[in-house]
């Protein structure tokens, strides 16, 4: 191990590695670069959501280490990093989806508009109405397209009568860029759509609840390039109204859609910067290795 490290100039010595407290298993030698806090600019002035000292544990195993990060208002923040680096786990911290996993434990201060989202007063159900989520695999409910979009609105009582609900469904489908394709088939099952359409249906469903933040967990990884392009355009339009955090494996996608990019590595936040800077002039060696495709 030390041989490999010594061949890389400017790397920390093997001694410092042995002193580092946590050594995740199954690591590869290229990853054994010490991460001393986050470089770049994790904090912004107009933060919509922010985390301080975020630590997440699955049982005894720690998945996220001391992450400090802000998500600015009406910006798209991309999270990149190799598989298992904790970016999806971090995303699920932000709307308390990790609460549904019994062995998962979240520490640290997390706020939405300055309110503590893990506070005693906060109901995760209400929080999730404000912080919506779109998943990696399109997961429309086994209901009609209309009912899929109307689902959240009905739960939260956002429409007082049928015509208001109709308008809301139509508006959400228009925003998600799906209305033209499905306007005659609103009563057909949502699972009958193509993969890209299903994902846009899921976005429409999330928008219909009128959230403030939308979390997207690899929303295009199951889609072809054309459907991906449609969804990326959609994100660009959505950022005027919503704050978006997106986890992606595609660095091109991160570069295309986001304003800031965060690079996660083995549960630590390595670098956060303006997207342009991350992809043209990364500060950290690990970030550079990753975006240049040397590993990951």
């Amino acid at each position, binding site marked *: 191990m030390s041989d490999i490290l010594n061949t890389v100039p400017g790397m920390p010595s093997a001694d410092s590695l042995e002193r580092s407290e946590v050594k995740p298993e199954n690591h590869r030698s290229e990853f054994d670069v010490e991460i001393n806090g986050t470089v770049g600019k994790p904090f912004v002035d107009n933060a919509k959501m922010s985390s301080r000292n975020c630590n997440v544990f699955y049982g005894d195993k720690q998945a996220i280490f001391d992450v400090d990060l802000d998500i600015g208002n009406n910006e798209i923040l991309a999270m990149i990093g190799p598989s298992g680096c904790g970016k999806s786990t971090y995303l699920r911290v932000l*709307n308390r*989806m990790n609460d*549904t996993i019994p062995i998962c434990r979240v520490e640290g201060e997390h706020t939405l508009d300055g309110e503590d989202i893990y506070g005693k007063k906060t109901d995760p*159900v*209400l*929080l*999730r*109405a*404000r912080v*919506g*989520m*779109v*998943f990696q*695999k399109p*997961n*429309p*409910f*086994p*209901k009609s397209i209309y009912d899929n979009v109307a*689902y*959240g609105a009905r*739960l*939260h009582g956002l429409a007082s009568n049928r015509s208001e609900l109709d308008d809301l469904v139509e508006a959400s489908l228009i925003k998600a860029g799906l209305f033209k394709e499905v306007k005659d088939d609103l009563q057909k*099952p949502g*699972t*009958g759509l193509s993969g890209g359409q299903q994902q846009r249906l*899921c976005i429409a*469903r*999330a928008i219909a*609840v009128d959230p403030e933040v939308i979390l997207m967990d690899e929303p295009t990884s199951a889609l072809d390039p054309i459907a991906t392009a449609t969804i990326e355009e959609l994100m660009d339009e959505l950022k005027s109204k919503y704050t978006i955090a997106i986890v992606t494996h595609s660095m091109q996608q991160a570069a295309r859609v986001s304003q800031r990019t965060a690079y996660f590595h083995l549960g630590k936040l390595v670098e956060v910067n303006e997207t342009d800077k991350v992809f043209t002039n990364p500060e950290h060696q690990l970030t550079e290795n990753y975006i240049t495709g040397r590993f990951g």
Partner: protein
Amino acid sequence: MPTQTIIITLIALLIFSYFLGQKRSIAVSSINNGRRDLHSRPHYYGYMVAIWAGIPAVLILLLWTAFNNSIVTSLTISTLPESMQTQSKDSLGLVVNELRNLADSGQIADEADPIKREAASHYQRLQGISKLAKTVIVLVVALLGMIYAWRLINPELRARNVVEKVIRVAMILCACIAILSTVGIVFSVLFESIRFFEAVPPSDFLFGTKWSPQTSIRSDQVGSSGSFGAIPLFVGTLLISTIALVIAVPLGLMSAIYLSEYASKSVRAFAKPTLEILAGIPTVVYGFFAALTVAPFLRDLGESIGLSVASESALAAGLVMGIMIIPFVSSLSDDVISAVPQAMRDGSYGMGATKSETIRQVIIPAALPGIVGGILLAASRAIGETMIVVMAAGLSAKLTINPLEAVTTVTVQIVTLLTGDQEFDSPKTLAAFALGLGLFVITLLLNIVALHIIRKYREQYE
């Protein structure tokens, strides 16, 4: 050689031919680039040789065993004197039986009648020849088959395709046995029912409201006029099954939801098998539980609040039957609810739905086909249930939908019609088949409805 020995020899021969074929295929192949140039793997050649050795021999063995006796018997009869051959069929049968016994007991010499003595020893001789011939022919055919297949083996021979075709035919035969048994049962019930409907008009059976299947031998006896109106029975069946389902569906569904969505792993590991034990209790045990515990309890309870409850009531039977079929609902529903993808739950939670909203609006609809399947399985179980009803609901065929009275069901009446010594040509016994046919049609309809529901919702469920 007795048949068992032939079979054992044949099996040994098949094992031998398997190895022979395998060896032969390796011997005739050549090795190119480390691979044998055989079309199929060597063991397929082994199976092929075994098939050639086995199948014709087994077929001959079966046919021989099936027809041996009738051929030998007719040969024996043809040697009898003219006068004996022209006897009636029955007395000829007696003679043949006598000859067989003589031959099998080996006491031919004790027989006084020289003709019979002669015939019996002829019979014995023929059987001996037949046995020997069977042994020789079966084993020779097996050997010939083996040699033939062995000579066929060369690297181009498509042994795998041959073997796979034979196995496919074997599987088709297995499926046919199940299908033919069903068809056979249906037809036997159908033909007996047709005989019943010759005696009793179908309209009386289907629309009559009085069930009293008493027929008499002499026309001047009391109760000589049997009446076969099946409506009270079907109403009774429906009543008890409905009570059972009203109990079982909510209880089963709720426990399934608890087990799959709320229970911790340790509770689930303990509770699920315990619930399933309910299905393993013999129905007769449920029966005396119903008759000795539940029915008296209901009667006392009814008295205390001023209701008259019969000591054998539909309610008691239905309640206990409901408990009995809970596992059908809960276990199947639990399986399908657990099979709903986590992505569905995440999607719902991710939009700010509570757990109960998620269960009611996403998980139950997604699992509906399986839940309906479980309920229909429980329903057909309830409709077919006999023992509990015999013990707890009585035998009186009263046309009522009051669950506090005694009723009877179709299956119970079938049991009472067919137990004891019966003549199988009176309408009384034949009525059982008509009732069976009725039940069959009802369960068939239930299954069709179930399939329809499942198909309707399946396409929505990823």
